[in-house]
């Protein structure tokens, strides 16, 4: 369901159509400037929305999925793309610019009826829409131009996808053009007030690049900075893994009636963490790839060496994530090492449980990838008691892209958890008095 409204003007639709016809008939090497080809007569004749749909990046059926109620049956529709992209039921009345009405965002009836807009705002806004709409249309014309270039390259090699192109040079060229197209699509919609309104009201549709971009920016503002701050201040970096700049938003929660996506670093009850956690992975990209989640506890006391060691709690691999669907399906993924509930021993302090998210190489299934001459000790790779996450990462050729963290300590529920999962009696640590002679 497309929720990308538009204010594509009639003139722009003609320009888009001109662009598509020009590109289909003339080879792209001799592409003319499309601004010269604007014919005002074709504006009225234009009823084809497929070009607009192609420029925006959705199908024409999506645009026409919701009939426009203002058009009578059998009548000649004087349509705009915006009207079509927004079904009447979904169209928020506060965004219907043509109708002068009281703002719906004011909940109180008294305020709503006495509210007055600043004088001249409406006229200036209409003018602004026109200016922004023109800019947006030029960007979409550029998109169509570049799209035809990519299509020509694909047709040359007889493939449908960019990564199927055999020639490296042509593939990289096509890839760079596609990156440019994505950027243009973001820029084209970034000033669209309806897009901003939809995003701010939480109605973002992640299939469109502009919403992905806005979501990523929002995540980078505070949540990512907070995550990196907690990881560094609590020394998860470098105690478990070296520094990374997260590119993927990993969210964790524990199931239950009060399940919530908690902030990194929270101290949770052992009763809560006894359940297998649920994950969400927001990649902010329109791609499909596989991920691995590893949970380690670097605070297990190592009495023999007078130090601490890492304990492996969970490995979930082959998590397939498509761009628009962030939820992790545990049943469709592979549980390499089943979940071990945290059960800190008494007086062993607060334990950190670092959740690391790795991207599997080339979107393939998890497999050992020998690198260099150094032999990997396979018996140590998945050992719960002596787990080395850096060794694990390098052995499987993984790339760390995201992280999360929670903390546990010995509490009133720990013994019950130990009993329930048969974890035995834990050591009770105590300070020994050292005699100095």
């Amino acid at each position: 369901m497309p929720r990308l409204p538009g204010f594509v003007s009639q003139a722009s639709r003609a320009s888009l159509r001109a662009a598509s016809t020009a590109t289909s008939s003339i080879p792209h090497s001799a592409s003319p400037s499309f601004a010269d080809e604007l014919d005002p007569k074709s504006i009225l004749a234009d009823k084809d929305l497929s070009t607009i749909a192609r420029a925006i990046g959705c199908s024409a059926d999506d645009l026409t999925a919701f009939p426009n109620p203002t058009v009578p049956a059998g009548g000649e529709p004087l349509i705009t793309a915006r009207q079509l992209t927004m079904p009447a039921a979904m169209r928020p009345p506060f965004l219907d610019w043509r109708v002068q009405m009281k703002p719906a965002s004011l909940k109180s009836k008294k305020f709503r009826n006495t509210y007055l807009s600043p004088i001249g705002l409406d006229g200036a806004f209409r003018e602004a829409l026109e200016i922004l709409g023109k800019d947006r249309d030029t960007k979409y014309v550029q998109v169509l131009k570049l799209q035809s270039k990519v299509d020509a390259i694909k047709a040359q090699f007889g493939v449908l996808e960019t990564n199927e192109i055999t020639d490296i040079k042509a593939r990289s060229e096509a890839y760079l053009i596609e990156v440019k197209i994505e950027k243009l699509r973001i820029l084209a919609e970034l000033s669209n007030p309806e897009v901003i309104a939809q995003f701010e009201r939480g109605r973002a549709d992640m299939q469109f690049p502009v919403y992905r971009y806005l979501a990523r920016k929002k995540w980078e503002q505070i949540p990512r900075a907070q995550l990196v701050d907690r990881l560094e201040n609590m020394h998860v970096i470098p105690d478990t893994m070296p520094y990374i700049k997260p590119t993927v938003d990993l969210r964790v929660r524990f199931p239950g009636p009060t399940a919530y996506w908690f902030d990194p670093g929270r101290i949770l009850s052992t009763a809560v963490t006894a359940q297998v956690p649920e994950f969400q992975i927001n990649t902010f990209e329109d791609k499909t790839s596989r991920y691995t989640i590893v949970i380690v506890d670097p605070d297990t006391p190592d009495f023999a060496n007078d130090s601490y060691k890492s304990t492996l709690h969970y490995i979930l691999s082959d998590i397939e994530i498509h761009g628009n669907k962030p939820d992790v399906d545990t049943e469709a993924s592979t549980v390499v090492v089943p979940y071990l509930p945290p059960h800190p021993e008494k007086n062993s302090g607060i334990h950190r449980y670092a959740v690391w998210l790795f991207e599997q190489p080339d979107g393939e299934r998890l497999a050992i990838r020998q690198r260099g001459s150094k032999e990997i000790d396979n018996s140590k790779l998945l050992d719960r008691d002596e787990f080395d996450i850096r060794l694990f990462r390098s052995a499987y050729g993984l790339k760390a892209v995201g992280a999360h963290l929670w903390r546990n300590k010995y509490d009133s529920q720990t013994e019950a958890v130990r009993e329930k999962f048969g974890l035995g009696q834990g050591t009770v640590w105590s300070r020994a008095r050292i005699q100095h002679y």
Partner: protein
Amino acid sequence: MSLHQLSSMFWRRSQTIISRTAFQSAAVSRIPQPLHNFEVSGVKFTHGSLEVTRGKRTKSGGSSPQKIRLVNMLSLIGRVRKAPYRLKLSYEDLLRHRTIHRAWQLVKRQERESRNTELMTQYQKIQVACDELEKASPELFAQAMDKPKSLRFPPEYRIPTETPPNVSWDSSWKKATLPQVK
């Protein structure tokens, strides 16, 4: 509450305001405030804060001229009511306002960019012309490239303009002569 107490209160308050503005968000030692709430002639003092009630009748209340003067002075110092009211825009109008701002920014950017490209092409044309001159006549080129070594700023320098002057050449112009020092 005597006038003396009130004036000392006023002094403390002004000190607090000055210290707050002087070290914004820095550690400001709070001056202890009186414990009881009290009200004098339109000025309501509460524990640790101050509120000036404007528009309240002060004349018929039997207030002394000193008190009225003090209230006026306080109203000048108080910064809270000095700021103009914040514009109350509904979400829709705020969004319109933001859109207008973005469009304005876009227009300004387009102006700037077109101007920059124009200047760039002009500069490139100058470069090409100079290269041509160098090929045609190295002597003339050397003369054209010659920079005046005088440290004095030439008074006959014209302010650069975007368009050529209406009178293209002033043939009656003569170099300014400095008055001779005797």
